């Protein structure tokens, strides 16, 4: 596979959220505003990039039988670092993402990429893979949160769209809105795929 493809597969053909439906929890919980979506995507990408690099570098040292616990410790360390950096420099974002920052540890995409890609490939390819997956996941989060914020709060990235009289559908930023938005987006993508086939 060419290097460009390592990068682009995460964005379209193997998009973690829309195609593989991995990492659902944060995509439903924190997508109430576009700012949250971007913040979560950035934190996720940072952790994935760092863990892919570390695991790719250590892939010949880590014994096969205990590789999963090793990966988990590596990922958890980077999550902790990310958490501390966000707490220090982006306290508002840290507060609104809340528990979902430490929960990046159990995001199946990161462990999945470690197991399926970084443990078998060189550093450069792993970096591209992480960036592709990270950008793909961030884009997916931004799309879901755009739908929810525009419909539910009538704003985009905090900027009001309609006039003062515009009514917004509050339910979209309440918990059910997460399920509705993601369900409809997935159905739409299926529809598009069936058409092009």
């Amino acid at each position, binding site marked *: 596979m060419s290097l460009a493809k390592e990068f682009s597969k995460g964005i379209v053909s193997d998009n973690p959220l829309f195609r593989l*439906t991995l990492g*659902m*929890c*944060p995509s*439903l*919980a924190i997508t109430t505003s576009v700012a949250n979506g971007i913040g979560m995507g950035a934190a996720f990408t940072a952790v994935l990039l760092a863990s892919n690099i570390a695991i790719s570098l250590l892939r010949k040292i880590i014994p096969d039988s205990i590789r999963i*616990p090793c990966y*988990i*410790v590596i990922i*958890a*360390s980077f*999550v*902790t670092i990310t*958490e*501390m950096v966000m707490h220090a420099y982006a306290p508002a974002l840290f507060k609104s993402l809340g*528990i979902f920052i*430490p*929960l990046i*540890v*159990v*995001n*199946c995409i990161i*462990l999945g990429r470690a197991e399926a890609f970084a443990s078998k490939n060189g550093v450069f390819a792993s970096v591209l893979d992480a960036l592709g997956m990270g950008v793909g996941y961030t884009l997916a989060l931004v799309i879901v949160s755009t739908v929810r914020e525009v419909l539910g709060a009538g704003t985009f990235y905090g900027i009001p769209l309609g006039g003062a009289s515009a009514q917004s559908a509050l*339910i979209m930023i*309440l*918990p*059910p*809105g*997460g*399920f*509705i938005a*993601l*369900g*409809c987006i*997935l*159905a*739409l993508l*299926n*529809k598009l795929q*069936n058409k092009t086939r």
Partner: protein
Amino acid sequence: MQEMFVIIIGAVFINNIVLSQFLGICPFLGVSKKLSSAVGMGVAVTFVMALAAIITWLVQQLVLVPLGIGYLQTIAFILVIASLVQFVEMVIRKTSPDLYRALGVYLPLITTNCAVLGIAIVNIQKSYTLASSLVNSVANALGFTLALVLMAGIRERLEDADIPKSLQGMPISLITAALMSVAFLGFTGLL
């Protein structure tokens, strides 16, 4: 006693772990195709969450806080939970083959279930006592089981329904979950 009651009602109905806190979505959508496996998963999660609540609380209060290394919480908890699940699996396999046959397949899935780690962290954040942590974890696990079993019941019916092609699979599951979530919103204001 009243405090415990408030925790239980809050965790099972008002802030249902799946439908309003969005923890444990993967098993919720993955293991809800059949009623029997939904019940099995619910029992396994309840068991592990109760144990994890006790152990993570002890680790936090007896190790992390006295040593002043609270920032290692995420690493410590995920390791404790992963080894706990392994340990439970081994114990069940040795002591009760029947139980192992019923729960065995679900146990490995629980390590990556964010509900277990999530609730362990919430227990510490809300500075619950050991007893409250245990009650909160069990109540959340019951809420998880409730949502899972309801979902499995609905999905067994959906098998026969005529669903448009684009909506089949994940989209219709998510929309079903949305409707359940709307129903659970009705519990707001119960307390």
